[in-house]
């Protein structure tokens, strides 16, 4: 525990020292930078970026390929595949990745892509819902969001989504856990600084589901949330919980305009 406390002090010391360097970074990041918003891509190492740049080399594309296969696979009692209703994903799913999570009237709350997929499965296909973080659900989510690759994130935060956006925002700025840190403590106050051996990014969500080299596989945004929460010694919420879906909406708006990068590669 003492070591952790020291690390936190060291990290805050770094803020002062490194602030200058962060500001003088004048690399032109092209589409990966919109105003003062910078995709996690711009914080990744050159080697990591080159893996993402080449669709063949990007191991996450294997998940996307699996998603394509599942898209055409008939399952459930209704005898339908995703393609039975949605036909060509390149057309029908062209926007989805940029506009989710959305307000879903029948439930009176937000749903994200994973939940939309499972709703389709249970209600329209009469098939079993996929488990969170299962290869199937990750593949389908990555596949669907990949169709929107390059499109700027443009979620709706007004109308019925507004109160959920506010809840997400509150979550983002709420300190939590034994380390008493909020999301913003790292990703707003210290983006561009080192936390021990890691470079903190702005924590943008535009590349999820992401292939993380640490995970050695594709993982969902909610897995990342859980990781962050437990690293500040807070009890993580369940993947797919309302808290995380609300946060997902806030983050999407925070990165509004950044291109969807799914599937991104990060360290």
């Amino acid at each position: 525990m003492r070591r952790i406390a020291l690390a936190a002090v060291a990290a805050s010391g770094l803020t002062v020292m490194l602030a200058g360097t962060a500001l003088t970074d004048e690399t032109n990041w092209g589409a990966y930078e919109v105003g003062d918003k910078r995709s996690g891509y711009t914080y990744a190492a050159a080697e990591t970026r080159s893996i993402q740049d080449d669709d063949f080399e990007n191991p996450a594309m294997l998940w996307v390929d699996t998603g394509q296969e599942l898209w055409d696979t008939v399952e459930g009692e209704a005898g339908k595949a995703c393609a039975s209703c949605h036909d060509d994903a390149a057309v029908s799913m062209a926007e989805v990745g940029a506009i989710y999570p959305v307000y879903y009237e029948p439930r009176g709350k937000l749903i994200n892509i994973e939940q939309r997929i499972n709703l389709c499965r249970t209600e329209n296909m009469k098939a079993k819902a996929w488990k969170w973080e299962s290869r199937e659900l990750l593949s389908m989510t990555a596949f669907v969001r990949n169709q929107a690759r390059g499109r700027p994130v443009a979620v709706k935060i007004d109308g019925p989504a507004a109160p959920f956006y506010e809840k997400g925002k509150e979550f983002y700025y709420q300190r939590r856990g034994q380390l008493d840190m909020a999301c913003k403590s790292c990703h707003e106050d210290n983006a561009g600084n080192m936390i021990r051996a890691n470079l903190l990014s702005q924590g943008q969500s535009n590349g999820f589901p992401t292939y993380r080299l640490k995970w050695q596989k594709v993982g969902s945004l909610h897995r990342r949330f859980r990781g962050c929460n437990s690293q500040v010694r807070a009890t993580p919420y369940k993947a797919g919980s309302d808290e995380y879906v609300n946060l997902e909406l806030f983050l999407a708006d925070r990165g509004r305009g950044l291109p969807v990068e799914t599937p991104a590669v990060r360290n």
Partner: protein
Amino acid sequence: MAKPKPRVKVPKTAAKGEVLEIKTLITHKMESGQRKDKKTGEKIPQKIINKFVCAFNGKEVFSADWHPAISANPFMSFYAVATESGTFEFTWTDDDGSVYSKTAQLTVE
């Protein structure tokens, strides 16, 4: 885990004497044998791809022995000189003896 899925990228055509970059990728967990099951404390047995071979027209042109430190979903790229038209055959051999393979055609003009 789902059955490993190999992918290869080889140019379809090439000029004689041209140097080709060949890229390969396969989905595999590459279980190192050094992890423990968090619940039971038992060691998770090693299960990795230990051999990668690329043959051209039946003749081995490139091979590699892999060890537990190779990451999951291993990517391998190497170069070859195009001399004649033919078929590349890529094989990955698993610890449990299963072999995953993929072929690719090359036409030399």
